[in-house]
């Protein structure tokens, strides 16, 4: 996909691009978002493994320790439960920690803290205590790393009441969603599509702006079929849309941006119009978000459907080591095939 095409993903939304902008990739956009939040509010802290002097293994936190010092950009011991658990303690005390888990495949030791505590603190105490906490973690495949560096297990957390989960696919959304997550008074998981961290750049406003949590983005309007995804899979999805377009198919493209809570309204409005849907995610197929979206469509738009909802997802297998990972990941051709199947039904 061309840089212009990628940049156009954010077209049509309410971009308050008054004043200065910078051309940034996703890594830089998150970095600017963190910087802006830390500048705005002294209670915002960054903590995690290698986030300080090293600037994070992907350089997302580059320069922050120099700007804000080691008390606010905290290099922690190598311990995921410790990072999230102490961040919960600090968040209850009025800080707004942005904790980093280096890769989503390493989040499991912290799951007890996330599911057992962060997600439940407000409810357990009927609002007496809250956890305004953000946990960032790069997710997904495509970078040829060792095992456990490619997982896409957002469904674990979509299935966890009390936690919001956002997944940007563009630099503009990456910065705006990060700022919304930091401003939010509930715990937010911020999943970063590391496969497209540096895939393209686009104009991003300087300073603070929010992309609302819980609001999907209709990236392309169309009438024949709705293509739905989020995060790194938006790239092959938009490539598929271009191919279909050349065949005369008018595909509507939705970038969910927030996977919990889901913007059902936008999805249903689109499918009511097009009558067909393909949901794409790299997470395993069974109990993935595609199943939930298919169920929502059958509950609310069944009589508008012209074909079964198609799912293009990761297989229900352990994420492969790099030499076989291309077999696992959904791609442009699989999406085009699924769309044609729905169109020809």
């Amino acid at each position, binding site marked *: 996909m061309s840089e212009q095409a990628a940049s156009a993903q954010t077209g049509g939304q309410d971009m308050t691009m008054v004043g200065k902008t910078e051309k940034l990739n996703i890594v830089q956009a998150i970095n600017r978002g963190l910087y802006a939040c830390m500048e705005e509010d002294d209670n915002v802290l960054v903590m995690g493994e290698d986030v300080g002097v090293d600037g994070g293994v992907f350089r997302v936190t580059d320069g922050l320790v120099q700007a804000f010092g080691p008390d606010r950009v905290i290099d922690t011991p190598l311990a995921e439960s*410790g990072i999230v658990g*102490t961040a919960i303690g*600090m968040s209850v*005390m009025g800080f707004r920690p942005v904790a980093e888990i280096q890769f989503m495949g390493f989040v499991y030791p912290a799951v007890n803290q996330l599911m057992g505590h962060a997600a439940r603190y407000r409810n357990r*105490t*009927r*609002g*007496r205590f809250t956890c305004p906490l953000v946990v960032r973690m790069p997710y997904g495949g495509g970078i040829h790393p060792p095992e456990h560096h490619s997982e896409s297990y957002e469904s674990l957390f979509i299935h966890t009441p009390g936690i919001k989960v956002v997944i940007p696919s563009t630099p503009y959304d990456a910065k705006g969603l990060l700022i919304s997550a930091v401003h939010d008074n509930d715990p937010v998981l911020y999943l970063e599509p590391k496969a497209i961290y540096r895939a393209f750049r686009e104009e991003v406003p300087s300073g603070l702006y929010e992309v609302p949590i819980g609001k999907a983005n209709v990236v392309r309007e169309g009438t024949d079929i709705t293509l739905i995804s989020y995060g790194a899979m938006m790239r092959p999805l938009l490539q598929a849309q271009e191919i279909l377009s050349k065949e005369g198919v008018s595909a509507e493209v939705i970038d969910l941006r927030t996977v919990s809570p889901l913007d*059902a*309204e936008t999805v249903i409005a689109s499918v009511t119009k097009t009558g067909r849907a393909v949901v794409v995610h790299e997470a395993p197929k069974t109990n993935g978000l595609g199943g939930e979206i298919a169920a929502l469509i059958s509950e609310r738009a069944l009589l508008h459907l012209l074909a079964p909802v198609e799912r293009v997802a990761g297989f229900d297998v352990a994420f492969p080591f790099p030499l076989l990972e291309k077999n696992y990941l959904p791609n442009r051709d699989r999406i085009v095939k699924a769309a044609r199947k729905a169109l020809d039904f």
Partner: protein
Amino acid sequence: MPIKTIYQAETERLDILDKDGKADSSLMPDLSRERLVEAYKMMIRIRKMDEKILNLQRQGRMGTYGSIRGQEACQAGIKLAMDEGDWTIPSFREHGIQVLAGIPMHQVMAIWKGDERGHVYPENVRCLPVSVPVGSQLLHGVGVGMALRLKGDKAVAVAYAGDGATSEGDFHEAMNFAGVFKSRCLIFIQNNQWAISVPFKNQTAAGSIAQRAHGYGFPGLQVDGNDVLAVYAGAKKALDHIRSGKGPYLIEALTYRMENHTTADDHTRYRPKEEVEYWLDRDPVKRMKIFLTKKKLWTEKKEKDYLEQVKKEVEDEVKKLEAMPPAPASDIFDFMYETLPQNLKEQREALMSEVRQ
């Protein structure tokens, strides 16, 4: 090259009052007569509450309950040493401390009855909610202590757990973070020697929990957890250390769980009667009463009057508990998020239309 010793350590244990109420005068903490009496009253107060909750449970007026019987000296001793502004980060067997920290009894009872509203503490109470996943709350305590240090707050966070929790990974991570970040946190372990049916010797090959602090670069101390004076003196030493900015501290209060793990448990399945009797003879309340009586600070008349006062408080609090109007069904939705998302609005409406029918 000669082999060098790179580390050597000793771990101390503190006992002051023996089982028969005789104090080691050389170790007596500097406590006024009033404070000595207060220590005893605290223990009576939380014991009577505990007995009442057990009774309510047997009558079907309470949920599954975990008794604190036998651990009163731990909970009164630490409270006596804490400052007004210090934070309490409890596990699930710290309701004595919660009440002593200023949470009304009926709220503590409400939590055990199964009502989240028990956690809506009065504004001035510096205590976090009950944490059930064993050991996990220690990290919150260390985080609170890190926050206090960053804010320049003189207060200390006291994080609680039991002996079973020291086998959890979170105990290690909490101890490690505490040491690395010089968290203003006291990790206070009530070693009651039984994690449901598993005895302490099956939790660790280390002879004590206190000695494990050495591995994290800060001090640990074992105290007689059935001696309120030893718990107070040990805790005071630890809190002074932390308050002066020297970093965290670990205290192991060696005590005994006199009751079942919870009312759903039957301890006769796994521990000998003789062991329970041995510890009954080391009761924390009894020995303090003997000590105060010998010092002429306590009389049977005072005992009778105070018991009456506590009985009235407990009965009044039970009345308050049972007078609480039922929580609305919608409460299960209304505190999940600051603002209810659309899917929860729809599910809430579905429940409410069911409730209205």
